[in-house]
């Protein structure tokens, strides 16, 4: 097999400026004297120019990393939060042997919301306006999770309820439910939940119960999300910078969802 490039390869290399001067001059002479070859060269040049035009380039975060000691402290805080939540789960399992009706309903709505997702953006303010009560609605953009679906969440014994689903770019779906009414076996502290293949966390803030559920999500990432949503829901405030950094960090450190 000859190592000499074909005319087509040589023409490509010529357009790319990759030929040695003598060879480039030879190809240039042929292009000048051969309309068909000139047409090929023009076509290649046009393709290259069109490809070099990169549309809709996002704005990237090029901020320098935080000092090492700060990062270490942040990660320790994340790890401590996650460890606390994971440890608390054993206690919860022994205290919560029966599956309450709202949890069964949450597992059902997790699957049904997957079919209701919309490409149109959903905004927390819109959702809150139709909820009929004032639940805390987290903005999980820092965790790369977007609000994709919303639905009523009827629970027996509760005056209404709201179910939201957030989706990520790596197959993750997180369902967040909020419903008014006391009881429902929810405590003011955060507790781990398992039902129907879903894992998550539940808690109560005053007279509103909350739960956050996912399937196949990295347990540490889910724990970090839950810990931050829990803390923010108690204050009914958006995440602060530290919380957003934790959410972004846990997402970066986690594997893709498997469900």
């Amino acid at each position, binding site marked *: 097999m000859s190592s000499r490039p074909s005319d087509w390869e040589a023409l*490509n290399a010529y357009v*790319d400026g990759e030929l040695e001067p003598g060879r480039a001059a030879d190809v240039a002479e042929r292009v000048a004297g051969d309309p068909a070859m000139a047409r090929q060269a*023009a076509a290649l040049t046009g393709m290259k120019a069109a490809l070099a035009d*990169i*549309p809709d380039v996002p704005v990237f975060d090029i901020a320098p990393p935080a000092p090492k000691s700060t990062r270490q402290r942040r990660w320790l805080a994340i790890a401590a939060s996650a460890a606390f939540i994971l440890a608390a789960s054993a206690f919860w399992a022994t205290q919560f042997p029966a599956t309450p009706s709202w949890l069964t309903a949450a597992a059902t709505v997790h699957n049904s919301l997957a079919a209701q997702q919309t490409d149109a953006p959903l905004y927390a303010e819109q959702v809150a306006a139709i909820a009929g009560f004032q639940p805390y609605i987290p903005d999980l953009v820092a965790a790369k999770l977007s609000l994709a679906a919303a639905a009523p969440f009827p629970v027996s014994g509760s005056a209404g309820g709201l179910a939201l689903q957030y989706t990520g*770019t790596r197959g993750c779906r997180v369902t967040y439910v909020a419903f008014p009414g006391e009881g429902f076996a929810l405590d003011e502290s955060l507790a781990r939940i398992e039902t129907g293949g879903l894992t998550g966390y539940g808690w109560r803030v005053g007279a509103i119960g909350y739960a956050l559920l996912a399937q196949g999500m990295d347990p540490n990432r889910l724990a970090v999300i839950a810990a931050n949503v829990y803390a923010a829901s108690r204050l009914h405030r958006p995440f602060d910078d530290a919380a957003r950094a934790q959410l972004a960090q846990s997402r970066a450190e986690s594997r893709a969802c498997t469900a």
Partner: protein
Amino acid sequence: MAFDRRQAVQNHAAQLYGYAVSLCSDPTLAEDLAQETITKAIAARRIPHDKAAFRAWMFRILRNTFIDHTRRTGRLVALDADDTDDRADSGTGDVPDNYEDGLVNALTVRFALEKLKPGQREIIGLIDIAGFSYAEAAALLEVPDGTIMSRISRARKNLADAIVDTNIVPMPRRMGRSL
């Protein structure tokens, strides 16, 4: 003059993103891949301080990040298998007779690029989108320079065919009106 890492990253961010799109054909995933690459490049303790080496190093990070992603998600992509079905094209290809320069714009080219095999998208991503030389692309992909020459010419032939096959025709320009 001291090497400005952040400025170097900024200079290559658009090309990294363009290369990522060529690898995965998914702008959202491409944004994630490019951001992860940038974050790693900014945070790395040791970096190449030669501009060309730094650029090649960043693109290698992105390529490895993409490969890791495909492994995690069970969607392995054979980036080096661009030519198993196209050897007959090698050396004989040119743009089709019905190829019209007027059809070539960013939209039609991007649309056609998605129809190519992953390895062919990648070589076009490196040479035409990121502006790599054949030698730089050969070093990144760990193949001889001549292989790059063959691959890029074959990929462009298939791209030209795909452009002709697309049904997207640019709207005629209206004279004397601005939109």
